[in-house]
């Protein structure tokens, strides 16, 4: 990033702003995914399959990622922030998985 003459760096300095239409699209997708999530929750036949939990996990991961990428504009921001966020996230995720394994809860 170009040196900025102010110490405050006032005005977040992004490469490109997501536009408001992006915001609304994202909101729509989030809503849709949530609807699907709740919907499959109410399909006993699907809940019984092995796909239920993985599909929920994937859907929630997708929601997670798009909020972070677009609303928290990590996609458009300095890559430093991406490092600051993903590093801890990886440690956190790994810790959770190992803990669940150790307590015998790693099956769904």
């Amino acid at each position, binding site marked *: 990033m170009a040196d900025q003459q102010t110490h405050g760096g006032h005005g977040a300095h992004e490469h490109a702003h997501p536009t408001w239409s992006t915001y609304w699209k994202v909101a729509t997708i989030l809503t849709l995914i949530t609807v699907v999530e709740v919907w499959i929750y109410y399909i006993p036949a699907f809940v019984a399959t092995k796909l239920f939990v993985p599909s929920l996990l994937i859907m929630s991961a997708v929601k997670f990622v798009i909020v972070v990428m677009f609303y928290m504009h990590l996609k458009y921001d300095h890559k*430093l922030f991406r490092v600051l966020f993903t*590093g*801890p996230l990886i*440690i*956190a995720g*790994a*810790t959770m998985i*190992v*803990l669940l*394994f*150790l*307590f015998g809860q790693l099956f769904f």
Partner: protein
Amino acid sequence: MATAATAPAHSHSGYSEPTGIWSWLTTVDHKRIGALYLYTALTWFAIGGLEAVMIRIQLMGPNGRFVTADTYNQLFTMHGTTMVFLVIMPLSAAFFNLLIPLQIGARDVAFPRLNAFSYWVYLFGSIFMNASWLVGAAPDGGWFGYTPLTTYQYGPGLNIDFWLLGLQILGVSSLAAGFNFITTIINMRAPGMTFMRMPIFTWMSFVVQFLLVLAFPVITIALVFLQFDRFFGTQFYEAAAGADPLLWQHLFWIFGHPEVYILILPAFGLVSEVLPTFSRKPLFGYPVMVYSGILIAFLGFGVWAHHMFAVGMGPIADTLFALTTMLIGIPTGVKIFNWIFTMWGGDIRFTTAMKFAIALVGLFTIGGISGVMHASPPADLQQTDTYFIVAHFHYVLFGGSMMGIWAGVYYYYPKLTGKLMSEKLGSWHFWLSFIGMNLTFMPMHWAGLLGMPRRTWVYDAGQGLEIWNLMSTYGAFFQVLAGLVGFWNLWRSRKGPDAGPNPWGAPTLEWSIPSPPPDYNFAVIPTVTARYPMWDGGQKAHEGPIKTAKELGIPMPNPTIKPLFVALWMTLMFASMLLIHKGMTGLAIAGVITFATLMTLQLYSWLLTPLEDEH
């Protein structure tokens, strides 16, 4: 510090440090905050050491009766807690404060008031924790406070309440400091100070801040569960409700193992500054030193259960954690050999700082190797919870962290105060420490292998333990002498000979500015062109009179008392909760609400006041 104002070298300039208590209470200057950390932590070191000496007197002979069993349990709990949270961590913080801005060519940390806040929280938290002695209820659950021993059912006294509230308070301090230094290092580097030119101390500190901000939330939550269990009747650790007592152990050690690297990496950083200077050679393999530090920290999050090999996690988990633990030996070994090869071919001057630094290399290796022995689960079943472990961690903590910190103290005292410490007393200090520490902790290996469990108030006669314990106790007496000499040296050196900007011929930026540095640090922000600016970057040491910030037109943050009060209200808010177990729940709630309100108001007032005057 205050003596700087009268130092002849500076008296002809217009520059003078503000003096008086008020200037210390309101300071936002990172160097002064560093000094506060240093002197506070050294005070706790004397107290933690006193506790250790009482432990050793009790164990001098079999079936000792110097203190009671309950007192003994409080002593080792407070000794461990004090040394870890009130001594080594804040001593490291003292150096973070003093050095990071100087080493990267900054005028202060990113958030000077937050920095003051961290210190005051630490001070009040440490006082709170030790106030437990005054009411006769010092924490007694061991420094890792295993549940269910620390639940209300088995520990109904205030002891554990002091401990868990105290640690929560201290956690706030560390977290705040962590965010502050991460930001400082990322964002306040002088032009040309690229990451791969940063002094290793700053690098290791950088890594430590990440460990802090990622490890402390975990213990905070573990403590919150414990607190809720004790105060509000939740069941996180209630076996009767089906809770697994191991939950605490896992959460604690997920924090606890990164914590031990929090304790050692700053010391590694300090010796990485000292060794090159006194060998007159650059650090051997700088990039590898950086990467190994990062790797140690990263791996450090994946080894925690090596503290739990005896709980029966099963062979797969044991194998997993054994292997990750052993892996850490590799990057650490690289560091050790790189230090040795920094000295190799050098021109070694045995100053006191250098002696302590070399001692770290030698003694940490011993502790590291015994660490690898614990990493083997079947063998660890014969080691865990014995004095063999006590030997390990004192070699890494005293032989490592403490030796490194003393090296740092001798090395940076001139920068902090402008005065040189006595090398003669320093030599005494070093040799007494070195002999004393080995005499104390080496025999513990045998005591452990001969079946002496740790945390035992007494051991029986006739089991072959007498001689090792007696040796340890004499060793501790040597360490008391060492401590006295060291403290005396610190005290009397405040009137020592002037140091000048760079008494050691050291290579890094902090040595280019006057000692002690003026409040703005750098009259002109340097442009860095080399890893060792003073050696091969053409950076010159400051000469001539020191101007004031005003003369130079440098904007300085205003002193403020607000962080102190926020810290105070916060501590009192936590402290109020103690009343719950005194049957004064109403008062406790009132206290929490009052102090939380005061804290919030004070915080708003702080945040709405600009750091500096408008220009």
